[in-house]
């Protein structure tokens, strides 16, 4: 299935970008492989929103951002190196990677500053099955 893309809204350069985790090579590689296998695009999931702080963005997708640490950036910083596609349902975006080279992952790690997750609780609860989601 092609990557489902949204149209009509382009977030400003200062909008917040968050991807859960410490962005280690193994996770980035497998995430990109999965995205390519499912959607034909070499990319990894991230979340983008015009919010005041990281906690506000995590509150939009708590089921996906349960990691103790998060990679945090801005739309402008990410776009200096990578394409950023509005995919699935907001606030989901896909950071498009040119290849699976460790150097590419290293660049992504320079863009995504690792910060503690302000909402980290160790064992967060999922919403009940059947709730509407992306």
């Amino acid at each position, binding site marked *: 299935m092609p990557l489902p893309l949204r149209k009509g809204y382009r977030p400003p350069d200062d909008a917040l970008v968050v991807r859960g985790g410490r962005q280690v090579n193994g996770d980035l590689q497998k995430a990109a492989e999965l995205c390519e296998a499912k959607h034909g695009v070499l990319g990894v999931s991230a979340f983008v929103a015009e919010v005041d702080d990281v906690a506000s963005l995590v509150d939009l997708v708590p089921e996906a951002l349960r990691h103790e640490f998060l990679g945090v950036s801005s739309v402008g910083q990410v776009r200096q190196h990578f394409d950023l596609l509005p995919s699935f349902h907001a606030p989901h975006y896909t950071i498009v990677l040119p290849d699976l080279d460790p150097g590419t992952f290293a660049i992504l790690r320079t863009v995504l500053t690792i910060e503690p997750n302000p909402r980290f609780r160790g*064992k967060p609860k999922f919403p009940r099955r059947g709730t509407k989601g992306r």
Partner: protein
Amino acid sequence: MIARDLWIDFNDVDATAHVSSLLSHARPGVAVRVGGILFVGDDEGNRCRAQVVGIASGVVDLALEGSTFEAADDSQVSKLHV
């Protein structure tokens, strides 16, 4: 810590606790079949139990049991090679 059966990216978990992975990201020897219960997680050491709800074209669809989520511990994280 229980060994991971199948890699997942928690960033891909949707609001209904569903997520996908690839058969090729399973630990060698693990039987991945619909209805089976697996321990899934990422390379940081975050773990969760999940039920396989579908397999097609090498893609595995899973329903996570969110209450079983365990965050990576520091000893696991210290072994990471970026």
